[in-house]
């Protein structure tokens, strides 16, 4: 439930972001040196960029850092000491597309699962405030460039509404006359009061505009992808020739996984210098040969065929079977990044349309 709504002029957004940065790290869409929009840690409030729909780099680094110290250690002959990392700092992830919010739900589901909840993740998550951002191509104030959403985004086909504010602590909705509405939904959202209290509350007209944008957005949701059928079909095609074709163009670069907001597989490595060191976890991907290769040399996934299959199976069959949530949110990043032009939408369509075995 929305507790309150404040109205922030776009010209005042840097002031709002600057206030968020007081005592918190802020991860937000920003332009990198190449002019690409990516999620990155802000060092100045003006860096936050509001012109981009799906930043190429997802926000997952806020919750699963590329390199995360699990603990540090010191070794001496006959004696070893281990010290846990410092507790995580308060942080805000700002400007999340609702599909990226859904991806964080995937993370939450996996990392909180029994029998062993992932304590480092949960501690970091508890210190994290999510400020989503709505995208409505029909909204009266929607800038021209966002009226034509990326042709690669297919979150609606997965039932995700780009105006959905659920699972966020606060949510931004673009309004007419270069303004943003800030919806506050949770205690974590309310805790941002010092950053937003100087902005005026929404008036009835603003509320009506927000409601209208939501209504229009919801009307666009017509999920044509039958995820249950896809999962059902996947269970029967492990040995299908389909995989020969799907993997053929794949170069095994792993870009799809590293840019995927739901991919969370990791490696655990040692970083040492002299007698000191740290055990760290780093992003990893099932697209690499080493991912599953045993010390004996045996590898259950010897070729890119098995690895491509694992990616699709994990996202649309295994994840759904275990956690009842697909490990894909339709952000389209993997489609944009694939050097071989593999398109997960095409793959899903093929799997969906497979003739039903009688």
């Amino acid at each position, binding site marked *: 439930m929305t507790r309150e709504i404040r109205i922030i002029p776009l010209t005042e957004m840097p002031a709002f972001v600057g206030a968020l940065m007081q005592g918190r790290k802020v991860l937000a869409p920003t332009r990198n040196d190449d002019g690409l929009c990516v999620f990155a840690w802000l060092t100045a409030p003006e860096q936050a960029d509001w012109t981009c729909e799906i930043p190429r780099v997802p926000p997952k680094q806020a919750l699963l850092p590329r390199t995360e110290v699990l*603990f540090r250690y010191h070794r001496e002959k006959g004696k*070893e000491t281990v010290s846990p990392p410092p507790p995580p700092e308060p942080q805000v992830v700002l400007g999340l597309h609702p599909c990226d919010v859904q991806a964080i739900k995937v993370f939450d589901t996996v990392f909180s699962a029994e029998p062993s909840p992932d304590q480092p993740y949960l501690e970091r998550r508890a210190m994290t405030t999510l400020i989503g951002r709505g995208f409505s191509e029909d909204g009266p104030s929607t800038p021209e460039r966002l009226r034509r959403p990326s042709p690669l985004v297919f979150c609606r086909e997965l039932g995700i509404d780009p105006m959905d504010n659920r699972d966020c602590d606060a949510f931004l909705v673009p309004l007419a006359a270069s303004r943003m509405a800030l919806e506050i939904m949770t205690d974590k959202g309310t805790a941002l009061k010092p950053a937003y209290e100087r902005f005026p509350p929404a008036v009835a007209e603003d509320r009506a505009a927000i409601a209208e944008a939501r209504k229009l957005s919801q009307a666009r949701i017509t999920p044509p992808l039958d995820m249950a059928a896809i999962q059902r079909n996947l269970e029967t095609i*492990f040995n299908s020739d389909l995989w020969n074709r799907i993997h053929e163009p794949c170069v095994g670069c792993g870009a799809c996984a590293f840019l995927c907001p739901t991919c969370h*597989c990791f490696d*655990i490595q040692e970083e040492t210098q002299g007698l000191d060191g740290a055990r760290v976890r780093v992003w990893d991907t099932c697209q690499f040969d080493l991912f599953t290769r*045993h010390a004996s040399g045996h590898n259950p996934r010897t070729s890119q065929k098995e690895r491509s299959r694992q990616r699709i199976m994990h996202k649309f069959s295994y994840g759904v079977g275990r956690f009842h949530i697909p490990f894909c949110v339709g952000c389209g990043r993997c489609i944009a990044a694939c050097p071989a032009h593999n398109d997960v939408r095409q793959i899903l369509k093929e799997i969906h349309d497979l003739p039903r075995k009688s």
Partner: protein
Amino acid sequence: MTSQGKANPYIPYPVTIDRVVVENEARDIKTFRLVFQNPEDRKCFDFRVGQFAELSLLGFGESPIGIASSPLDRDYVEFTVKQYPTGVVTTELHNSEPGRPMGLRGPMGNGYPIEKMAGKNIVIISGGFAVTTLRATIRYLLHPDIRSSVKNITVIYGARSPGELCYKEEFTAWSKRKDIAVTLTVDNEAAGWKGRVGFVPAVVADVKPAPLDAVCLICGPPVMLKYTIPELTKLGFKPGDTYLSFEMRMKCGIGKCGRCNIGPKYVCIDGPVFSLAEVSALPAEY
């Protein structure tokens, strides 16, 4: 089971290597006896036979290894480790002497179906150094407090040569006992070897363990499994009563890092022990 409350599940228990035993002639299989530096940690490390743990060497990494001692061996935990030239952790471990501090994370996995084994005949089949968690099981079942909880125990254990049989003194002692039937076999005739000669599947066909009211535990190299399972089926063992233990490359050991799955099952938390019925429902990706 492995839920460690609010603790960071990646921080290992501090342990010390207490004893190292070379198990084979090739000297690439050793058993490491570990003792907990804080005795109360041993109580937290509450395991059942068939579970595994991550052996942790700071500066080198971790390796998931089956627990080779019995839960009733209360003062220590043992692991039998084969060294591979590409294995950073196993190589460093093999270069380690008693007294070295290291870490232990676990216990992990489901273990053998002890509850289901109660009151049953137990058939244990193994080959090579895969015998480790089954050695733990035999030690456990032969404990005076436990032995009467199961009926007959039949063990068939094979290795390439007499010098490659692990836990040799223990198996020799067990083969002289009346409350367990042990058959040891080697692949080829060898000087001084008075036991059987032949591959495990052939010996199983010859010994003919009875399937009636029995639970069968089997662990060995893939080629042994491939030819032994049909023999067991021929003898009448049911897929639901036959259990295998799997190995996979692992990192976290707690179902997060995403690399040890066979189809929808994670070997680290759903396994490593699966019934043959469960295995036949999985894709053959192992």
